[in-house]
């Protein structure tokens, strides 16, 4: 197949590590934590070289050295035995970190194993492991640790073991829930279909996706382990020969540092603990943000508005439908602003007219700017998007420059939207009737509760839902019914224009047919103007009066439905039609359009369809074609039309 030649050549293969680092270093919190941690780890590792004195040796210690304040000789002063606090601080870092890391390793290992096994196998295995975990979780940690340590030899390794063996419970719970989530994903089923066994699936499919959470969790567990060790040492339960920060606190406190005012003997180890815990917390939180990025701007925030220019070219329009115009879009252009990149033109110079009772199909592949155009019409662009030119006239009001108050009046009462995948947009804990009532209450004055309820019932019946389903919850509705409920909600304030954004995409053919029939009937009954956004040309042919074909953000072709299907002039429309299965000729081989639509931040220089166009010639590569009107309002943006 020659298809792939046109596809994007891959960029330098990005290894996951470089990708991770690139995001990580932009997170200031995580980098600060990492630097703080590295500083203390280096101090601990090179303690022998860095510490000015040997903390175990009493060589050269004199009686007057006891609790001497900080000086050039002893940066952090001296302790009760006249030894250098700074040296103890550095050696203490070593032991505190050893306990922290090893104990955390044990906890993570046990918690991770329990969590994955419980989540993956489920059933009695899960029950047993998780009940055990719950039991461990409710036993107060510290008293238990104190008892264990008191019963065993006070050695560093015993401390590590005890802290590690008791600190795994939260990890187990977190890992189990993540494993449950990963296990239900389709690629795990695919791995099973390939013939993979449980062990293979755990190692290759579960573990890599649980790992990020495990890493973040590990970092927090380390800081908890360091805190536990300090507490134990402070209580005098640690190895008296191993210097750690907790041990330093214990000695200083027990040997009268407070009463002689030797604050430095307490502050130094305290500072060490705070430093490490803070470093780990910063790193942990930062990592979580890096590994688990959430959307920063809400998709439906009101877009910024900068109408910069009046576009020059306005092709004359003749009505395909002889009713009054309700919505007119003139030369609309929309840009997305991306930090550090040139703005991406998502919609360029698009114009159309919508008449009362007209159904217009807005057609194009994914990523052709259909949804952006509709969001711009309603001024619901995400915050990075802005209208940079053109007008959106709804009953004479320009939506592109309207005030917030005007917009609030027009939205839902003038123009309403049935969103893509909207049937999942219902609130699961409120009844459907309640949610429709809320939509009405928000926009219209309500005379009485009874009137409101009557209106809700009327709306539900209008979309073919019996009144008794009013008080049901969304989960009691089927997919088709939920979509009907969303249509009822869109109609709740009697709009003149309804934008239906792929309203049937996730539905079965029969339910799709029901919904389309309903939309068609409503438009006839209520005189609604409908914009039907879809990538399915068959549906458009069945339903629409006019069709706007978009490609790469521009109008490829705009005409009445018969012209689009029987005399298309734009090669893109022609190719789209060829790709559509035609049951009347089932043995014909389907053709497909090689390649993919252009990325909006990397548009080709000339005609946007040129790289995929079978008829492209030299001029197409350099010059964006004008919108040509070929008579009767038929608009085509193709150089070939001009030549004819």
């Amino acid at each position, binding site marked *: 197949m020659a298809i792939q030649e046109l596809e994007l050549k891959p960029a330098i293969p990005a290894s996951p590590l470089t990708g991770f680092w690139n995001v990580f270093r932009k997170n200031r919190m995580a980098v600060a934590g990492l630097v703080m941690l590295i500083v203390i780890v280096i101090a601990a590792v090179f303690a022998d070289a860095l510490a000015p004195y040997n903390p175990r040796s009493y060589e050269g210690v004199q009686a007057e050295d006891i609790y001497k304040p900080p000086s050039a000789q002893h940066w952090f002063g001296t302790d009760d035995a006249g030894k250098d606090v700074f040296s103890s601080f550095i050696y203490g870092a070593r032991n505190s970190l050893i306990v922290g890391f090893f104990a955390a390793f044990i906890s993570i290992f046990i918690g991770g194993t329990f969590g994955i096994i419980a989540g993956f196998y489920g059933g009695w295995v899960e029950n047993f492991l998780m009940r055990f975990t719950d039991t461990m979780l409710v036993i107060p940690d510290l008293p238990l640790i104190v008892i264990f340590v008191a019963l065993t030899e006070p050695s560093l390794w015993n401390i590590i073991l005890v802290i590690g063996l008791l600190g795994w419970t939260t990890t187990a719970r977190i890992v189990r829930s993540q494993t449950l989530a990963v296990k239900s994903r389709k690629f795990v089923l*695919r791995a099973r279909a390939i*013939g993979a066994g449980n062990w293979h699936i755990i190692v290759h499919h579960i573990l890599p996706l649980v790992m990020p959470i495990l890493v973040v969790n590990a970092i927090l567990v380390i800081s908890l382990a360091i805190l536990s060790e300090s507490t134990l040492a402070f209580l005098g339960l640690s190895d008296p020969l191993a210097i750690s920060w907790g041990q330093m606190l214990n000695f200083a406190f027990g040997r009268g540092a407070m009463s002689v005012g030797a604050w430095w003997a307490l502050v130094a180890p305290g500072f060490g603990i705070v430093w490490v815990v803070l470093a780990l917390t910063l790193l942990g939180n930062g990592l979580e943000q890096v590994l688990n990025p959430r959307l920063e701007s809400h998709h439906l925030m009101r877009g910024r508005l900068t109408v910069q220019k009046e576009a020059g070219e306005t092709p004359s329009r003749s009505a395909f439908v002889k009713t009054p115009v309700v919505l007119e879009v003139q030369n609309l252009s929309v840009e997305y602003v991306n930090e550090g990149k040139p703005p991406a033109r998502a919609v360029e110079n698009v114009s159309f007219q919508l008449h009362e009772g007209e159904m217009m199909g807005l057609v194009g592949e994914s990523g052709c700017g259909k949804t952006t155009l509709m969001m711009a019409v309603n001024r619901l662009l995400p915050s990075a998007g802005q209208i940079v030119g053109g007008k959106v006239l709804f009953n004479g009001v320009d939506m592109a420059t309207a005030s917030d108050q005007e917009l609030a009046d027009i939205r839902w009462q003038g123009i309403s939207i049935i969103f893509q995948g909207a049937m999942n947009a219902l609130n699961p804990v409120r009844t459907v009737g309640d949610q429709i009532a809320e939509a009405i209450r928000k926009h219209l004055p309500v005379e009485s509760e009874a009137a409101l309820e009557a209106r809700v019932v009327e709306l539900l019946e209008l979309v073919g839902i019996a009144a008794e389903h009013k008080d049901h919850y969304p989960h009691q509705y089927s997919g088709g019914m939920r979509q009907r409920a969303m249509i009822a909600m869109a109609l709740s304030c009697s709009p003149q224009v309804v934008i239906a954004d792929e309203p049937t995409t996730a539905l079965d*053919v029969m339910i*799709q047919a029901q919904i389309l029939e309903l939309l068609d009937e409503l438009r006839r009954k209520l005189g609604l103007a409908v914009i039907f956004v879809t990538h399915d040309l068959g549906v458009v*042919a069945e339903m629409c009066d006019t069709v706007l074909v978009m490609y790469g953000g521009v109008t490829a072709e705009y005409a009445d439905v018969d012209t689009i299907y029987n005399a298309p002039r734009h090669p893109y429309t022609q190719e*789209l039609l060829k790709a559509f299965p035609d049951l009347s000729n089932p043995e014909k081989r389907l053709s497909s359009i090689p390649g993919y639509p252009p990325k909006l931040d990397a548009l080709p220089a000339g005609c946007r369809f040129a790289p995929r166009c079978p008829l492209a010639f030299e001029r197409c590569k350099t010059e964006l074609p004008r919108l040509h009107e070929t008579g009767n309002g038929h608009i085509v943006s193709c150089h070939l039309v001009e030549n004819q």
Partner: protein
Amino acid sequence: MTDDFILEVRNLKKYFQAGRPGWFSRRENFIHAVDGVNLQLRRGEVVALVGESGCGKSTLALTLMLLEEATEGSIFFEGKDITHAAPKERKAIRQRIQMVFQDPYESLNPTQTIEEIVTEPLIVHGLSLEANQRRQRVVQALEDAGLKPAGDYLHRFPHQLSGGQRQRVVIAGALVLEPHILLADEPVSMLDVSIRAEIINLLADLRRARGISVIFITHDLGTVGYFADRIAVMYLGRIVEIGAMREVLQDPRHPYTQALLSVIPVPNPRLRRKRLILQGETPNPVNLPGGCRFHPRCPLAIEACRHTDPALTPISASHQAACILLQQ
């Protein structure tokens, strides 16, 4: 048993427990997901399995993959009963029956490279253990699936590919094992119309070049005409009509098939026609209607339909449908 059939399904049933109707009831409810399916697949044949959500077509596929244990009935693969195969045998069978899933965005592990994804089946089955040879098979599978040159894709991650390309990766992952049967569960329903054709053509080419038998599961009769030799229409766990592609498309005999065909959009506004839109949705398969399971929604239902559950009736040598009206 004729060797002509690579796969034969006899009276296959798969029920799921759905709890008891009441706390103290002894009777248990069952979801009759697959309820007595008979189907034969010839070598190199493409059978389209068509029906709405909830008709049991996906459960049937999972049962054929031995990912779900059949409740009743038997599955024969290359003449051998595999219904209750031992785990070792299952693994060997899975090498021969591969599956392509509906959602190419979900069915690839986002942390694996394309090479790892396509190599994985070989490792699982301990095939081509020599690195060079393995790489060669992976490259071959990717190119057969239309990802050319394969070198461009090996080190990429799923999120760097488009939906159509991802579905090709899923297909390559199945092809690398050189299966005899491909179960494609709605492989194009999540893709743009313009890309659907590519994937369907790819499957058609593979069948031609490699002689793979395909079961193509879909809710859209419109996409199957191009591709299938036979069409089987499922409703509530049963096959209600089965026959040669042309016969079913041009002379559908079951009212359900007729309705399904009538709602397929025709891409020509001059051919707008009356559509036969069934109201309501597929009833839930816990409480099956008595008599013919389709009668509550059937526009042609007569009194007899309430009592008699019709069996498949031959209409021609290569066409059967289950409707009382055909028997009279």
